[in-house]
């Protein structure tokens, strides 16, 4: 283990470390703590210039209910869910299939296709922007959550395929061969053997895609204009324009918008990190 476990250090260092931890955390999360504090500050504090002192009172309830009542943020959040959930389902489903194909079968263009998916992950969105926007318009999905869903599904499929393929590669191939000898068809192998074993990968990807898509801002601004389909990230920016100088509302809104992925992260931490660190540890 590196660094040397603190248990082996002198008691002085050990207690020093334990003191340092919360201090470091506090400094690290300072912007966040500031915003969280502001979100429960009475409006009066801001006017009085008390931006980062102790709040003069707790106005969390007022601020948060104001955010929901005076702005369509609730609606935006609903939109975000409408975009995110189908995307997660779609991208994960498609990539289960593609990942399976690329992991299990040997055919000439296998690696080429795989790297196509991988490369697709890293291209700048901007190169897709104009044509995708155009395509979405032509299909009549412009300014609908459906338009966002379709794009996100397609794009996330690239990343998910990379993940799924590597995951399935890690499964014992003998499972598949064993089933083949038993006379199980390829689809049945996928459905009954590989799919159930992919549960951890599916969980990891779901959390990850959920967060990615929830936090997407670029495509939300490109493919959606009106309130009725706007997800919360873009909505928040719009509200930011409306709420200038009302930092307590902006803060509360930010926290509301950040909450679902944060909750997701804390609930599914293991899967989340498994997804993110894919490939980070092996050669």
């Amino acid at each position, binding site marked *: 283990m590196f660094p040397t476990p603190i248990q082996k250090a002198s008691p002085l260092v050990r207690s020093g470390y334990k003191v340092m931890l919360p201090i470091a955390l506090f400094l690290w999360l300072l912007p966040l703590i500031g915003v969280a504090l502001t979100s429960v500050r009475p409006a009066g504090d801001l006017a009085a210039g008390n931006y980062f002192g102790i709040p003069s009172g707790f106005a969390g309830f007022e601020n948060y209910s104001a955010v929901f009542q005076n702005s369509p943020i609730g609606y935006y959040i609903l939109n975000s869910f409408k975009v995110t959930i189908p995307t997660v389902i779609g991208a994960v489903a498609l990539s289960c299939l593609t990942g399976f194909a690329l992991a299990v079968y040997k055919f000439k263009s296998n690696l080429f296709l795989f790297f196509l998916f991988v490369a697709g992950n890293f291209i700048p969105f901007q190169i897709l922007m104009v044509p995708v926007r155009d395509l979405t318009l032509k299909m009549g999905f*412009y300014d609908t959550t459906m338009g966002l869903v379709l794009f996100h599904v397609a794009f996330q499929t690239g990343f998910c395929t990379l993940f799924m393929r590597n995951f399935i590669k890690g499964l014992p191939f003998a499972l598949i061969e064993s089933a083949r000898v038993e006379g199980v068809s390829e689809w049945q192998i996928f459905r009954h053997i590989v799919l159930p074993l992919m549960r951890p990968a599916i969980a990891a990807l779901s959390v990850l895609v959920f967060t990615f898509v929830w936090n997407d801002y670029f495509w939300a601004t490109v493919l959606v204009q*009106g309130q009725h389909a706007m997800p919360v990230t873009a909505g928040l920016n719009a509200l930011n324009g409306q709420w200038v100088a009302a930092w307590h509302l902006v803060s509360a809104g930010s926290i509301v918008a950040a909450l679902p992925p944060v909750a997701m992260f804390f609930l599914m931490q293991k899967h989340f990190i498994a997804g993110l660190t894919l490939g980070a540890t092996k050669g």
Partner: protein
Amino acid sequence: GEIVLNSNHSDPAPKKAMEDLIADFQAAHPGITVKWNNFDHEGYKSAIRNFLTADAPDVVAWFAGNRMEPFVTAGLFEDVTDVWDANGLNEQLKSAASAMTIDGKKWGVPYTYYQWGIYYRKDIFAEQGIEPPKTWAEFLAACEKLKAAGITPITIGTKALWPTGGWFDYLNLRVNGYEFHMELTAGKVPYTDPRVRATFEKWGELVNAGYFLESHAAIDWQDAIPQMVQGKAAMYLMGNFAVATMKDGGLTEDQIGFMQFPEITPGIPMAEDAPTDTFHIASGAKNKDDAKKFLAFVASPEAQAKMNATLGQLPVNNQAQKPEDVFLQQGFDMLSNAYALAQFYDRDANAEMAKAGMEAFQEFMVKPDRLDAILERLEKVRARVYN
């Protein structure tokens, strides 16, 4: 039948005004229902391009002047000269008629505008013994006096760029006059013209003397208001909508004063900025007849009066009942006597030009010594955009 209406009335007051307007219209025309799609104010500006080409509604909200020109040339707006003629609008909407005319045809109806001018802290002026300045010299003197008293003379927030447009418009209108301003914004005059430089030189007098709020580039127009509310700044060149925010911030009507932008070059007639909002019929509309009825309704004095009462702005229809608000009355008087009305820099100039221009204005307000480079750059953009 049904008409589809797309608009950008997402803020609370405009939203309310629209809801009332639609209700009233449907009451007046029982056979017609209005399907209203409301858009976020900023997003609307790009959304309109999409829905006009892809899935056109019947009626769309937009802006007068150069801002509607691309849609007119692209054939996306319907000629509504007949609505004007049939309802006597040429007379009633006279002040905005020129802004609605391209190639001698009318392309929409205006329903609201509002004045721009300098809002100031009456009580501070009184304290410092300053009279509202009428000339450039008086204005400079007032600024100097405020500055000496430790008060920022002029507050402004240029993060969103457009507030700089107001300053340029007014300085240019007052230095070179309305005609020159319109030629410049129409791209007919190079930015390297000495007259443009003269405008910037006047501006430079204020910038170099440090009369503007220091960190203006970091803040939005609303953020500039607390300075005034807290008595740290005294003047604000803004549209009338700023009054509401000032009042929200805690200023009373007694503390706020309004004045016309002072004269600079003597003898040049005083033109003003008065951005006008409009309704148009999309050329791809499915129900043009009912849409025209809607336009006619919006143009009527009653509808405009009611709407603008909610909006807190001025009706364009000169038959409409005058507003009660003191600032609006002052504005109404000022605009009624104006030599001519400009729409605002970002509506009069082509969009690309406007973006480059306002960026340049901001840069100038931070780095006035870069004037030469700035003007050359603007000229480069102008040369490209208007060819």
